[in-house]
């Protein structure tokens, strides 16, 4: 376990009667890449603004490097931000923008020049010092914004939907670069996004935020494979979420049919939800399938086919398959016991983690 | 945010001293007669005097005519301008005369309209004979309309420029003729500009006095000239203020009727 650079303790935020954050607590370890992931209006940007000091928490405490910083103004915090719209000063050129923070601190000219040069090199904008902001493309502005933030050597870098204004290809490139930059600098990155692919690709840790609460925290793999609840399962990746009944340990009943699974520790006949990822469903012949279904639609997506089919009980399934099938054809659907992920209703993150740990011990 | 409080001091002082105080004072003054005694007689005089009532009707009538003439000239001008290639440049040419001192333009008309001026020389040349042009109501309204044209063209131009061209294509696509397109698409969409233009022209026209004096002859025929007369000649500030209050009320009525449709780049 690394040292905590940032801690939230029971932080709440209200705008008038509008509750944006509800009793949020978390720790941020130094030197990791965190992503706050959630739909718009979930409160993720508010968390970022509280860390930066643009907004004050209505209740609770924020600790930075062990010190309570609720009353420290934004301009005195060792945190820098890359803004969604970049917020580059339009009346300054690239070098002046990057140098702004250092000038404010009264760093001497020669050092400023060196560090600006260095920062622009890190974001691969060598030689762009004298360019006007208006003469830069979106991707280049993004880099200037990053350089302007990292030149101050903050302990934590905040990125607010920093890639959302870029086109798809550039965004994917920048994801790789940001990840490299974070390793190179060794500082903590806190990245806010609503784009789950971005979050999965870049992060050490993802915090899923919805409705002013943290839904689940974990590594991208944990969150994808073991979503805590309906919201997380639905929000991350594509999924078939089906109501089910837990018959006994390692046996779940979906739509009246029993299936072997790897989950245990629940009450007998407890009502649960089951997640089956579309890529975990394989198409086979009807006689070999655990389920028999009729194909309704098929879309070619380049890497695979997105197929929908309805089973004998008229339940619809989403299937991602690299093999082509035919609309109207009857097929068998098959999956492994470990592809079934069981979610209990209203389970807390701590209980959920304990339950998962218990299987691992048994194995 | 404490220093923001310091920022507002000079501006707030301006609001109190030069916006609120003068309005309060003109209202206050309107209740005093020429000898400095408190009275409501100014209002009674205004309401019972045929001279003042006629003058009010005349002012409104002149302002209406000036606005109408200006609109009739300006709408087609804006409409033609919008279809030109360098429309911003041509618009600048329409606006340019407003940068020349108003007095100078008015002064030019004195020369043009005089008994032996260029207009009369032209009229004689085409054998229509010489006419008294200066000091007539027509010449006064013509000059007033002349002054106001750019202020009417501009908001209409802006409103027309804001119309999405695909709306016009859509209208044509749906089978409307050019005239039908104009009547049911372009005109309604340019209406905010027309209203802004009317507001920008009508209110100042109500209170004209300089043009009235120089071109319309040295007569007291509008509320503007009456106010000037009372304040600067007869020194009856109470009566002048009363008419001023009436003018302010008229201004609010016009603004209410034309609605809050201020166009950007317009006079406001």
């Amino acid at each position, binding site marked *: 376990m690394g040292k905590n650079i940032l801690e939230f303790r029971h932080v709440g935020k209200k705008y008038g009667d509008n509750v944006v954050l509800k009793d949020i607590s978390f720790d941020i370890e130094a030197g990791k890449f965190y992503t706050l992931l959630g739909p718009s209006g979930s409160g993720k940007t508010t968390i970022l603004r509280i860390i930066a000091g643009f907004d004050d928490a209505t209740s609770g405490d924020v600790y930075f490097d062990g010190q309570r910083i609720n009353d420290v103004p934004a301009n005195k915090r060792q945190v820098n931000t890359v803004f969604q719209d970049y917020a580059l000063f339009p009346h300054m050129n690239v070098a002046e923008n990057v140098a702004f923070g250092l000038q404010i601190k009264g760093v001497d000219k020669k050092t400023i020049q060196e560090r600006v040069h260095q920062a622009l090199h890190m974001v691969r904008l060598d030689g762009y010092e004298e360019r006007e902001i208006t003469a830069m493309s979106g991707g280049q502005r993004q880099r200037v914004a990053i350089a302007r933030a990292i030149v101050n050597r903050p302990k934590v870098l905040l990125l607010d939907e920093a890639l959302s204004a870029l086109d798809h290809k550039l965004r994917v490139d920048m994801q790789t670069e940001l990840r490299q930059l974070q390793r190179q600098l060794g500082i903590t990155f806190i990245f806010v996004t609503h784009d789950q692919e971005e979050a999965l690709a870049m992060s050490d840790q993802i915090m899923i935020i919805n409705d002013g609460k943290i839904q689940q925290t974990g590594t991208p793999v944990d969150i994808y494979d073991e979503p805590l609840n309906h919201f997380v399962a639905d929000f991350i990746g594509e999924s078939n979420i089906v109501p089910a009944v837990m018959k006994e340990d390692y046996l779940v009943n979906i739509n009246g049919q029993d299936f072997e699974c790897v989950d245990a520790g629940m009450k007998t006949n407890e009502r649960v939800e089951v997640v089956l990822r579309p890529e975990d469903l394989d198409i086979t012949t009807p006689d070999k399938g655990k389920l028999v279904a009729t194909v309704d639609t098929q879309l070619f997506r380049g890497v695979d086919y997105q197929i929908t089919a309805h089973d004998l009980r008229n339940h619809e399934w989403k299937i991602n398959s690299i093999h082509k099938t035919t609309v109207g054809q009857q097929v068998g659907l098959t999956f492994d016991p470990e592809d079934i992920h069981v979610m209990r209703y209203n389970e807390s993150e701590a209980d959920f983690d304990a339950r998962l740990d218990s299987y691992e011990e048994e194995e | 945010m404490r220093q923001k409080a310091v920022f507002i001091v000079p501006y707030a002082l301006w609001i109190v001293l030069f916006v609120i105080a003068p309005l309060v004072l003109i209202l206050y003054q309107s209740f005093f007669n020429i000898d400095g005694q408190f009275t409501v007689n100014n209002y009674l005089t205004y309401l019972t005097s045929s001279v003042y009532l006629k003058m009010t009707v005349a002012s409104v009538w002149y302002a209406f005519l000036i606005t109408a003439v200006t609109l009739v000239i300006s709408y087609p001008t804006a409409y033609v301008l919008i*279809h030109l290639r360098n429309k911003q440049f041509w618009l600048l040419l329409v606006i340019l005369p407003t940068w*020349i*001192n108003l007095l100078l333009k008015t002064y030019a008309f004195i020369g043009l309209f005089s008994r032996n001026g260029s207009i009369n020389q032209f009229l004689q040349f085409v054998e229509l004979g010489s006419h008294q042009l200066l000091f007539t109501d027509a010449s006064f309204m013509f000059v007033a309309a*002349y002054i106001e044209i750019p202020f009417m063209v501009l908001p209409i131009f802006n409103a027309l420029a804001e119309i999405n061209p695909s709306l016009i294509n859509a209208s044509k696509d749906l089978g409307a003729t050019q005239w039908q397109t104009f009547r049911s698409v372009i005109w309604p969409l340019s209406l905010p500009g027309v209203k802004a233009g009317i507001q920008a022209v009508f209110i100042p026209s109500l209170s004209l006095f300089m043009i009235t004096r120089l071109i319309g002859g040295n007569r007291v025929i509008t509320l503007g000239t009456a106010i000037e007369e009372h304040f600067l000649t007869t020194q009856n500030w109470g009566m002048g203020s009363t008419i001023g209050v009436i003018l302010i009320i008229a201004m609010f009525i016009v603004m209410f009727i034309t609605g809050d449709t201020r166009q950007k780049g317009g006079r406001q």
Partner: protein
Amino acid sequence: MKKHSLKWSTIYLAFVFIILYAPIIYLVIYSFSAGKTMESFHGFSFQHYMDLFADTRMITIVINTLLVALLASLLATIIGTLGALAIKDSHGKWRNSLMSLNNVLMVSPDVIIGASFLIFFTVLGVRLGFISVLLSHIAFSIPIVVLMVLPKLNELSPTLVDAAYDLGASRWQTLTRVILPAIGPGIMAGYFMAFTYSLDDFAVTFFVTGNGFSTLSVEIYSRARQGVNLEINALSTLMFIVSLLLVISYYFISQHAGRRHHLVTVKEGDAQ
């Protein structure tokens, strides 16, 4: 059909432009006439320009007018910019009330402004003359500065201010290093508009000027009432050239600001 209608529109536009420019051209032509009236052209001469430059009263008045315009627009720009910052920082009802109060002088007829200022100065015991004229010009120029600066402030992304704080700037540094430079073009435009407003004003000045002090507009008014004098034509021509130069420079300012359509903003004071 299309060509035909285009032709009519060209003729119409030409007609409008002739009306718009005839008086100005007329003034300019007669400023070079050797004659004494605007009735017939008597051959080319610079006589009226010589008269104008020899007319010390007129020269003094021109200097007075410029002095008032420069001072009034400068002070109005400072107060107006502060006002715009204050309005930008206000919220809801406050903001609406401030905007309404700001616009009172924009929509008021000049006669009302002139008359009410005259009462105001008399009540305060301010002697009519340079000071009263200067104060009036500052007063009626402030709202136009606010209206020119406020859109620039509203355009300013709020994250820009956050970014300045984020990079360690204090509130004062944010104001002087980020906000003011970013709204610079609006402030320049406001100054320019205030300047032309002041130069152009007649009605308000006419009410508050008293006997000892005169500006160009008031002087032309009194001279025009006495009859035509071609010295004024010469002055008009010079002012026309100055106006043109101002418009061109303003054009470049607004171009530099990247907002081309700003140049089509017109002044209000002209109606009187």
